[in-house]
């Protein structure tokens, strides 16, 4: 026991701050300092206005400024399911679990106003929030915001597609599935 009393734990708790650690040095009690406004990290000069704001001048841009591939859509679905579906629902109908528990429900993505909204609108809402929806800028990176926008477009299409939109082979495949 005496030997054990000689043990010291200085290596376990070294005099440095872990991420988000507290500190008595600063007024708000946090060891990490907020970035000075206007700081640009290396490689993070957000010069591409359309990509980083969803706007051209003051107008929202109509189309998604990245190439939408299957990979982008899948990333968009994953991010949508993590961050958006809790309120907007997995299908975008606005009936996620949080509105079911009393949060004022958001509008469905399938109403005309939102189907006609430009792509930049979605980017802007994710970035800055809308009404009682908080900003998701801290949680969702710009590229992911566009991926989510693309996935919302896919959700909207899924509710408004007609048989005539399908190629004959896709139609045959679909009908084949029905008969199985």
């Amino acid at each position, binding site marked *: 026991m005496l030997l054990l009393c000689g043990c010291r734990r200085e290596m376990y708790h070294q005099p440095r701050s*872990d991420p*988000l650690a507290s500190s008595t040095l600063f007024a708000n009690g946090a060891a990490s300092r907020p970035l000075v406004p206007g700081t640009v990290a290396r490689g993070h000069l957000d010069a591409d206005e359309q990509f980083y704001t969803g706007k051209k001048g003051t107008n929202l841009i109509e189309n998604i400024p990245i190439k939408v591939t299957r990979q982008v859509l899948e990333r968009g679905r994953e991010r949508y399911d*993590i961050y958006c579906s*809790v309120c907007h629902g997995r299908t975008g109908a606005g009936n996620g679990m949080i509105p079911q528990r009393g949060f004022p429900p958001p509008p469905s993505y399938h109403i005309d106003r939102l189907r006609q909204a430009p792509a930049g609108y979605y980017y802007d809402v994710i970035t800055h929030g809308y009404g009682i929806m*908080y900003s998701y800028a801290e949680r969702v990176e710009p590229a992911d915001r566009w991926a989510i926008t693309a996935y919302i477009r896919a959700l909207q299409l899924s509710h408004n597609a007609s048989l005539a939109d399908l190629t004959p082979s896709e139609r045959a495949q679909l009908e084949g599935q029905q008969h199985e």
Partner: protein
Amino acid sequence: MPQIFRRRSNTIARVSILGSVVFLVVGGWALDAVWWSPYTTKVNVPIEQPVPFSHEHHYSGLGIDCRYCHTSVEKSSFAGIPPTETCMTCHSQLYIDAPLLAPVRQSLAYDVPLRWNRVDDLPDFVYFNHSIHVAKGIGCSTCHGPVNKMPLTWKANTLYMKWCLDCHRNPAQFIRPQEEVFNMQWAPPANQLAQGHKLVEAYHVNTQQLTDCSMCHR
């Protein structure tokens, strides 16, 4: 010259030899028991927090993904503790008068971060990185246990080096498909070892290096 030792000294000698052996064995056993007990490891001991946050309610009850709050787990060493704004995303509208949530509202109002108490805290001489574990198919529940069933959060494993090495020596026992990493209900299939070896290969996990000292102690 008189005898130095009396007759009963023989008994005392035997008893003390036996006694010291017993003392060492019992003492060793006791130390070991304390070392591995929840008293030291804090395993299964709920940690007191400024707000009694329930992972069970938020994950299992509401179906919120781990990454909704722990946003940096895929790209940083640190999984991230959510800022107060994340809590208030919902709680600006829900349970707005709940006394339990008063510290959250105060944190937002006065711009002073909540002081959560760490549940899993590695020694400072260990360099652990969440992102690489998540990227290579090590699921949340493998290390953090059934957090989806924790009304208050506790540590599920000792995080002793022996425990880390159990996996680093043979990750095939625990590795899972990447799409299951954030699934808290995932259970290893019957052919875990066979599948695990395939995943270790598919994800290019270099098992030769995993037990190098410098892997974790840099």
